[in-house]
């Protein structure tokens, strides 16, 4: 039977998320804008995924996210080649592979979009890890551009008064840095407005993620990995709000019509850590074959997790706390409490952890979280050893066997 004669699988078509195309268009436009910034006279700032982007938006600076680029590199299976290049430059292969891929990309304009647009400045917030500090130091030397570091003290057990003061002062320094780099002042009213849009975007993103409390879930964590890009890259713009409003409506319709992400959903699981970008499709199909849906994850929810600390009426003032108390910048026991909260909220029956050699702040502590989930909810954990960008450490047969065994146990 030739391809043309293959009957259309209506069930599969119905299941496809229609907003995907629009999302792809938005991201394409965003990258075209960024790559043509030189012609339009706009400045480009590279910024870490957890960094405060709102002041950039308010200053009409185009934010570019090497981590989002890293995810694209991973998803397009170009990670191995770039990581090998970085090793050739002298970097240890044990380092964060987003950093390795990005560093190796710069001199060759490699990767799926022919390299990122060159930065005019770098903005590094260490609320996700200490790795970004080292990575941005490398790039600050390479591109010879100014680097701003927003230092958000780690909240092992508290966000202290002195940390609050320190971060707050740095936010003022950040604005001065931007004003110097752009040669004009930052309009505080505009910043306040961008802050309002940012928070509205985050609330919508949370609402989208929350649609998976429904049984069956209208989308899975794998869909969230894809739709996440906007809240990361364009937070603070109307585009995000419009898009997530549409996506939310689509999810609500799916719920009403009983359209599920996974056909005949029988099992609900929670995912922890970054995606394994070069294997998302395979993993998603693998779990689906067991009628299991990954209904939520700790990763995509990190971009709306600190909304509770933000204040719409005093955005700049509340940014210090909001940007410090994010998922990766808090103690392992607090992370465990959040995982338990998600397990309850989304009615998950098990936890799937990606033990990610590439990301120590996310991965060290996972064993304790797994233990706490076992003790407090009696739920089992599957641990998958991998790395988000570099496929070399991924053993498909081993992972497959472990998933099968885990699912058999869950079904029993």
């Amino acid at each position: 039977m030739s391809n043309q004669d293959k009957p259309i699988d209506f069930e599969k078509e119905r299941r496809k998320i229609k907003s995907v195309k629009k999302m792809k268009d938005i991201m394409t436009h965003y990258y075209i804008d960024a790559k043509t910034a030189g012609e339009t006279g706009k400045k480009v700032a590279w910024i870490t995924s957890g960094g405060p982007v709102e002041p950039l938006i308010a200053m009409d600076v185009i934010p570019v996210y090497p981590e989002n680029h890293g995810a694209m590199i991973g998803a397009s299976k170009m990670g191995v080649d770039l990581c090998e290049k970085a090793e050739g430059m002298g970097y240890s292969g044990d380092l964060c592979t987003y950093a390795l891929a990005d560093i190796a990309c710069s001199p060759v304009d490699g990767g799926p979009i022919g390299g990122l647009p060159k930065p005019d400045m770098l903005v590094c917030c260490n609320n996700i890890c200490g790795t970004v500090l080292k990575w941005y130091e490398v790039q600050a030397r390479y591109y010879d551009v100014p680097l701003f570091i927003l230092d958000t003290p780690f909240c092992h057990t508290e966000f202290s008064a002195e940390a609050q003061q320190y971060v707050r002062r740095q936010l003022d320094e950040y604005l001065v840095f931007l004003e110097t780099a752009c040669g004009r002042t930052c309009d505080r009213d505009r910043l306040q407005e961008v802050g309002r849009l940012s928070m509205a975007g985050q609330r919508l993103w949370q609402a989208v993620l929350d649609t998976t409390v429904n049984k069956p879930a209208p989308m899975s964590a794998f869909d969230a990995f894809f739709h996440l890009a906007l809240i990361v890259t364009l937070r603070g713009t109307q585009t995000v709000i419009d898009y997530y409003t549409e996506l939310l409506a689509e999810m609500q319709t799916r719920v009403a019509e009983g359209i599920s992400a996974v056909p005949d959903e029988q099992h609900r699981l929670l995912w922890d850590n970054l995606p394994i970008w070069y294997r998302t499709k395979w993993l998603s199909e693998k779990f689906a074959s067991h009628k299991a849906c990954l209904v939520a994850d700790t990763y995509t929810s990190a971009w709306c997790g600190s909304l509770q600390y933000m204040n719409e009426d005093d955005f700049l003032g509340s940014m210090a706390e909001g940007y410090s108390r994010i998922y990766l910048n808090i103690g392992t026991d607090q992370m465990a409490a959040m995982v338990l909260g998600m397990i309850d909220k989304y009615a998950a029956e098990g936890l799937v952890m990606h033990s990610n050699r590439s990301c120590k702040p996310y991965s060290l502590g996972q064993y304790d979280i797994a233990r706490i989930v076992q003790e407090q909810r009696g739920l089992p954990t599957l641990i998958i050893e991998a790395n988000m960008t570099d496929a070399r450490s991924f053993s498909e047969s081993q992972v497959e066997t472990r998933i099968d065994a885990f699912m058999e146990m869950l079904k029993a």
Partner: protein
Amino acid sequence: MDVMQPFYDICADPKAYARRWKARTGGKVVGTLCSYAPEELILAAGALGFRLVGGSGAISKADAHLQAYSCSLVRGALEDALSHRLDFLDGTIFPHTCDSIQRLSDIWRMNAHTGFHLDVVLPVKLNTASARDYMTAVMRKARSGLENMLEKAISDDDLRQAADTYNRIRATMKRLYAIRRERPGAIAGRDMHAIARAAMVMDRHDFLADLTRVVDQVADTETAARGDAKRIFLSGGVCNLPDVYGFIEAAGGAVVGDDLCTGSRQLMGAIDLKDDPIDAISRRYSERAVCPAKHTGVRTRGEELVRMAKEANAQGVIFLYLKFCDPHAFDYPYLKDTLAAEGIPTLLMELEEQTASDGQFQTRCEAFMEML
């Protein structure tokens, strides 16, 4: 050398030393995880600072908490804690440094039973006014934290005296470094290692007395300078491997300086005794040679390393890194290139705690010396 005996005794079993010290003085022992732990505060409280630089046995219990891709330092330290080998500790101080120690602190707090737990969340950036103010605020908080946990008031005078002791230790170490630089071989590498190791564990007053004795003796002894030896500078993190020095010397090298976290980085930099003691102590931690997990500028580490290597007239630099140590691994290509631009060749040795003795290191060392 007889005067060296106390240091070797401690190196042979630092934990036994701490237990004896405790029994003898009735004092308290505080574990520390890196060279940014404010040791002056511990000393001012009359306690013994005990630096944890890795484990003393095979890893088994720690494997339930830490993945195999964490460095041997954090795995080893946790293993010791969980195996009750650190039962003599009254508490532990975790300064904020790398991602691995950051998570180790959480895991330790949740699982280890080693007395009180004090996170000293230092700034990562050290070169701005707001960061320095924050550093001082954190130090003040660490002081009152320690006062509570050790149930002992720490007066400004206590602090000044402790700072003075550390100043003397650091000045004496500086003298020793200077002698070694001028007369390579005047003190054997393994002796230097034993001293640096003991500096992290021994009663600091006793250490100062014994150290002074050694340095006086080394200064007075006419050793034939090993003029033919290749002058080697060591750069890197934690070096808990006495063998390294033996290999370098056997291969025809002599260590003439280092920027190790367990070497000069912990032992250099003076505290200004005229100032408010907390301000002065904070300033020393902000201004001393920076660890790669902290930031003082995008080129400061390279410039500093070149300056130190040149000052020591080094012919070559050997990088000693622990496997899975991110901050050092990120700096390596840049530091290597910066040194190369100055005509200083380098060798990278990535170590797992137990693997230095496998012959590989020796072979590579020999090849490196020949090339110089």
